[in-house]
């Protein structure tokens, strides 16, 4: 009897195909579930379900000088974008692990490790933490940059479905034109329980 065998074969192949489609489309390891963006603007508090985020300042720099020691100052390949933020966990101690920039084309930028600024924010409940994030950005991508911050982990892509602060840094085309030629040098900051003022310095040594 051919019909039952043929049916069985087709059924098996169909089940395999459906299973593969399900595994590919619903793969929990990919970022299929995008974070939920809470839009904000510089100078205003963005309220997330688990914390408050405020970008207090953004400015360009050519170099970011290390706070301590005689180490050399890293130079931006493009322009350093220095983003000062005030972050408060509101319900329980929270590690704000993913901080990145997104440009007007939707491309993502990671913080520059060599600049020795903040990497993430570890917030005690109700205790504001002040942090400086430093990003190296190509000069033609400055206008329209947005700062993104959430709990999720960039490495393991656990931003799935989480609430994300999506802050417009207010960098205009005119800003971009003047920022690309910046020669400003600031001292690096990481995180602090006290607010900080960025300190501009002059470099007294240029490497050979």
């Amino acid at each position: 009897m051919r019909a039952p065998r043929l049916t069985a074969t087709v059924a098996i192949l169909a089940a395999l195909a459906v299973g593969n489609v399900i595994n590919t489309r619903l793969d929990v390891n990919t970022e299929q579930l995008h974070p939920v963006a809470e839009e904000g603007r510089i100078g205003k508090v963005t309220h997330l379900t688990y914390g408050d985020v405020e970008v207090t300042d953004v400015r360009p720099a050519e170099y970011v000088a290390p706070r301590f020691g005689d180490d050399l100052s890293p130079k931006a390949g493009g322009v350093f974008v220095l983003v000062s933020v005030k972050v408060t966990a509101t319900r329980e101690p929270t590690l704000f692990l993913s901080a990145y920039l997104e440009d007007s084309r939707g491309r993502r930028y990671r913080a520059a490790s060599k600049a020795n600024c903040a990497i993430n924010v570890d917030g005690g409940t109700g205790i504001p933490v002040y942090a400086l994030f430093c990003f190296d950005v190509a000069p033609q991508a400055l206008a329209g940059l947005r700062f993104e911050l959430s709990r999720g982990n960039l490495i393991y892509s656990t931003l799935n479905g989480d609430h994300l602060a999506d802050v417009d840094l207010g960098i205009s085309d005119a800003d971009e034109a003047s920022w690309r030629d910046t020669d400003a040098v600031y001292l690096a900051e990481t995180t602090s329980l006290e607010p900080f003022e960025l300190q501009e310095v002059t470099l007294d040594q240029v490497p050979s």
Partner: protein
Amino acid sequence: MRGFVARRSGTQRLGAVAAVLVVLSAPFGGWRSASDAEVVPLALDQRLDLGPFYLTIDSVKQVTELPPVLEEDPTSRYLVIKTTVTNHSDRAESATLAEAAFAGDHIGILPWPDREDAQLRVYGVDDAVELPAGEFINPDVTYHLAFVLRQEPDTDLEALTLAVRGYVFQEVDPQTLDPDRWVLDEDPIAEGHVPIEVGS
């Protein structure tokens, strides 16, 4: 073989056909063909497309010291490969991708006294700052990077060759569940001997 197949029942033959179809059919992953480009001779000022990055070797020098970052050491020399690296992809990529692209022959490589794991040390040419492990290069950003290795003082520089490999973009890696990765290609994009300046 014919006898073997003839003795299988209809069900078994159908099953075998189904198995072959499963293996070959594209919806189940298939195979991604690696790039088949030919290897070109390595040269200075030649822009190579590694996949995520453009890489150009600007110069190769052998020096006895590299101020302000490396002191003179009579038991070794430093081979300094100065490059220009641009991330031309749409997302931040690890600088390690540029580092791992390099290979070579007759290098006379020596380990670094303070770092057993590294063969190449990476410095910014414009700031002399050593690139931290795990540093990312953002989209459209260009760095001038010096890749430095330590070598025997009597290395025959005429025999020394370098190779640069590229990467293939892998959307899904079924083994690691780590999607959207650049995987190092086995075959180099360019290899050969380039002129090596000998400095003080």
